[in-house]
């Protein structure tokens, strides 16, 4: 479904060009959950933004190919890219506090992708949005629908983001550190919500995180990045039990272990 090959991302917004991703390869089949792990600055978010078609075309130069269901994300006309964004590929972000427009009602924002990609009328859109809000386990969807972002907690906002991203039942959901800004109990809830969505809707998920234990819970396959390079990739359990690269070993050994006497 998604095939990324030899992706190189270079930024030209400074005097000296800077490469942030080298030779990135990734395949995702429909219904799969793939983890992308690495520290800040390892290039994982940049790769994700490139796949979602959200890298600014002016500043970033990209080599290689990103093909999603036969569409060349890197070089296709913008109209084609837009017709995929929010419809077949959706994305949720690290900062639920700032990723929603502060002056628009939640309902309006959840419905937005429907307004752009379907011919549904106002009433149909509202019904669908309320359905989605319920699906992401928000209580009292009617009230949430009429609320503004600042009236909701971080966890609720991330659920709203998921509802908005999932409203057109996309083939691929890119989740860029969706739980990093949330506290631990909410993290676990969001992860199990993503797991459920994947199971029920068959949406493939690219789950980006620096939290290995979350990745282990959620992903069958994992890719480890460091300084722009992929240093390890394979089945999650395989990587955990038999890490090839020194960096992966360090990452795994840095997961705090709870010892029970």
């Amino acid at each position: 479904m998604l095939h990324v090959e030899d992706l190189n991302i270079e930024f030209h917004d400074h005097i000296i060009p800077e490469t942030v991703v080298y030779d990135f390869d990734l395949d995702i089949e429909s219904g799969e959950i793939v983890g992308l792990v690495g520290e800040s600055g390892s290039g994982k978010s940049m790769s994700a933004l490139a796949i979602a078609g959200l890298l600014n075309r002016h500043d970033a130069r990209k080599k290689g190919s990103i093909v999603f269901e036969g569409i060349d994300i890197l070089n296709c006309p913008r109209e084609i890219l837009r017709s995929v964004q929010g419809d077949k590929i959706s994305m949720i972000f690290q900062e639920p506090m700032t990723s929603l427009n502060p002056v628009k009602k939640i309902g309006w924002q959840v419905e937005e992708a429907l307004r752009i990609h379907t011919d549904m009328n106002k009433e149909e859109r509202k019904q669908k949005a309320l359905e989605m809000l319920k699906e992401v386990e928000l209580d009292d969807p009617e009230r949430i629908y009429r609320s503004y972002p600042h009236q909701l907690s971080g966890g609720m906002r991330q659920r709203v983001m998921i509802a908005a991203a999932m409203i057109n039942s996309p083939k691929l959901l890119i989740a860029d550190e969706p739980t990093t800004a949330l506290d631990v109990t909410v993290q676990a809830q969001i992860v199990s919500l993503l797991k459920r969505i994947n199971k029920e809707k068959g949406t493939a998920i690219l789950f980006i995180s620096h939290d290995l234990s979350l990745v282990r819970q959620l992903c069958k396959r994992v890719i480890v990045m460091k300084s722009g390079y992929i240093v390890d990739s394979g089945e999650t359990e395989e990587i955990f039990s038999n890490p090839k690269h020194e960096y992966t070993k360090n990452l795994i050994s840095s997961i705090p272990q709870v010892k029970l006497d």
Partner: protein
Amino acid sequence: MKILKKIVSSILVVLVVSTLVFVAFSVIPGDPAVAKLGTMATPEQLENLRQAMGLTDPLPVRYVHWVLGVLQGDFGTSYSYGIPVTDLIADKLPVTVTMAIISMFIMIVLAVVLAIYSAYHEHSLLGRAIGVINQVIMSIPPFFGGIIITLIFGLTFKLFSPGGYISYDINLGKFIGYMIWPAIAIALPKASMAYSLLLSGLIGEKKKDYVRTAYSRGNSSKAVFYRHILKNACIPVITFLGMAFADMIAGTLVIEQVFGIPGLGMILLTSIQNRDYPVVEAIIVCIAVLVIFSNLLVDILYKVVDPRTR
């Protein structure tokens, strides 16, 4: 509820302003009776006139008397013109208000249109040129802008006759034709400030996280701009509008001198010279009410645009 509170506090502010104005004009040196009769008048004549003007009563009594009158729309009688102040002002107030409103309108249209253009074409030649010209215009005070406008549009292109004026009750269209030029002079420096404010808002908002979210849903740049960025970028400008309106009212008082328009500014000046306190007090109270009312409107607008302030 908050708005009701705001209305009540606005009324209180008007009351405080009126008290200050009344007390201030009662304690500053200068005697209206002397101003009217001249220094050659005999003490008896002055005393008689003071009595006739009601200046011999103690201050609190005069104040209560004045406030009760104001509440009924009676600002007393002008010392120098001898007619009720209310009539005098009711005739001139529309000039000031019309000019300020036209000026406000011109400012908003110019700032919004140009800021949107510049935000869209941030790096284009014209976008940069607007930025430079804007810096120049920002530093032109209205009275000077008024002179330049008179010179270019009045004397050279003959679009209006400088010094001419037609009252609104004679021909409304021509009256507005005469109001537009001074309004432009007042609006230009304010428009350039509003432009800078809106432009930096627009450019700042472009980099916000919610913009990326909007793109991820398949919005075009245009849709992102008009549906997401614009409303957010307007929030800081709204606060500015309230201040700008107050400044514009003050600006009309000066600019009408440049254009020879008989408005509140002219009566205000002569009344201050003649110690015609009822007129001065009435004008100040009217302007205070206008400014406070416009601030109230801005507060309401603010709450409409930004849900976080509700």
